[in-house]
């Protein structure tokens, strides 16, 4: 089974924090890394570590929020993957506080991939490794796939009222990502940005929540919004 299929199998049928944890655990098993964490950098209040492969990963990740610098914050701010092959390299001076702190934990390789929801860079998948060096090409492709998948649990977290989703045993991350990336859904998201005066990620959360609540597909809801047959209420 290809890495991305194994990642999908790890999150299928799971939601929110649980899905994020399982995705991180799968990264550690499938990729050549020692720890993985997913964090959300959005709206200040909800920022922080969301899922992790275990206690050390959580600690490495949360340290960024304490120190105000690190791979996840940089990856989101610059909207690119941040791949640091060796924190012990004297020329590697990008994080004066975070770098030495991670070296003290015996971590030398740090790799962060942005998590994108509705076109917004709202979080990152952080991978940590004791051994310095580049991630092999196949592992990096797997990491990018994991970061793509991480969009689903992040959407769950952004949706305050998740009951419908949590109790759906058939939830399938692949199908959901496919649906949410369709042109109609993005167009309807754009209409909601104007109607509800919210940010893109929140507009998508609202569209998806309505689909869950009414038992319809996000595409059908999007078409109704586009054709002005449906108008969602502002909060």
């Amino acid at each position: 089974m290809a890495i991305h299929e194994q990642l999908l199998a790890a999150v299928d049928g799971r939601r929110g924090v649980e899905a994020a944890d399982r995705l991180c655990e799968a990264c550690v098993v499938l990729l050549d890394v020692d720890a993985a964490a997913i964090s959300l950098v959005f709206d200040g209040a909800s920022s922080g570590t969301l899922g992790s492969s275990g206690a050390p990963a959580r600690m490495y990740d949360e340290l960024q929020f304490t120190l105000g610098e690190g791979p996840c914050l940089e990856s989101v701010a610059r909207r690119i993957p941040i791949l640091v092959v060796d924190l012990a390299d004297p020329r590697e001076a990008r994080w004066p506080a975070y770098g030495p702190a991670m070296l003290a934990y015996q971590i030398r390789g740090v790799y962060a991939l942005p998590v994108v929801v509705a076109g917004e860079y709202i979080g990152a998948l952080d991978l940590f490794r004791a051994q310095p060096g580049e991630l092999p090409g196949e592992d990096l492709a797997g990491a990018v796939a994991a970061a793509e998948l991480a969009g689903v649990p992040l959407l769950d977290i952004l949706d305050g009222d998740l009951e419908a989703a949590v109790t759906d045993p058939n939830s399938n991350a692949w199908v959901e990502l496919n649906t949410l990336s369709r042109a109609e859904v993005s167009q309807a998201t754009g209409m909601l940005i104007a109607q509800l005066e919210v940010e893109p990620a929140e507009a998508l959360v609202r569209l998806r929540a309505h689909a869950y609540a009414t038992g319809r597909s996000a595409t059908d809801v999007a078409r109704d919004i586009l054709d002005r047959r449906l108008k969602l209420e502002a909060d």
Partner: protein
Amino acid sequence: MRARKSGKEGNVTVTPRETRVLDAVVSLVDSLLDDFDVVDLLTVLTERCAELLDIEAAGFLLADPLQQLRLLAATSEQARELELYQLQADEGPCVDCYVTGQPVSVADVREAKERWPRFVPAAVGAGFVSVHAVPMRAAGIVLGALGLFGTRSGELTEADLLVGQTLTHIACVAILQEHPPTPATVMPQLRSALTNRVIVEQAKGLLREMLDLSVEEAFHLLRTYARANDEHLTDVARRLVTDRYSRPMLVGELAELAAAPPR
């Protein structure tokens, strides 16, 4: 495809197309050497493809990190045609082309019902007869496919295929131009290009809501505005959907442009 079937005696028709192809390549490479917007340039590429290959519709589909094909740019924003591209997350000529890395050319799509049970009725319903796909490649990886749809039957000739491949190479360079591609850099760049498309779609929806336009009109207006102001399409779209403070003024300018008589 139409007149070119004539073969040897076709020298008279071949030369003008060569010239037109070269013109297109020169102007596209010119854009590559300048500052450009990926979604906008690839939309232009699909338009050139359609003209040069005598095809009704063309679209670039790119594989996302989960190896699912997603639309990056197309000649038309009509819902029926968009659906044809979107169906190819599951089946169709572009998926087959992406999986095998080989071109696909089907003279009459009605004969491929068993091969693509969902795609064929959709293609026929949208008025298409011939369907083709040309692979996009870089760094030994297939990145996606260029889908081509015609309203007349007929396979792509070798010359057609060469034109399609040339324009597809330009598209790959446009997507990957920041760095020489390696397997490690290709995936994040594809992902970033697809994210740009999402933002452009959102901006179309936002303009539909605020200016009461169709999504097709909204896309045209965005492109016209971006060109007139020498801005990237994606940057204009991003400002519209994420910057609520500059939005009212930008929407005002777009409304003015929409109301202006065409030049």
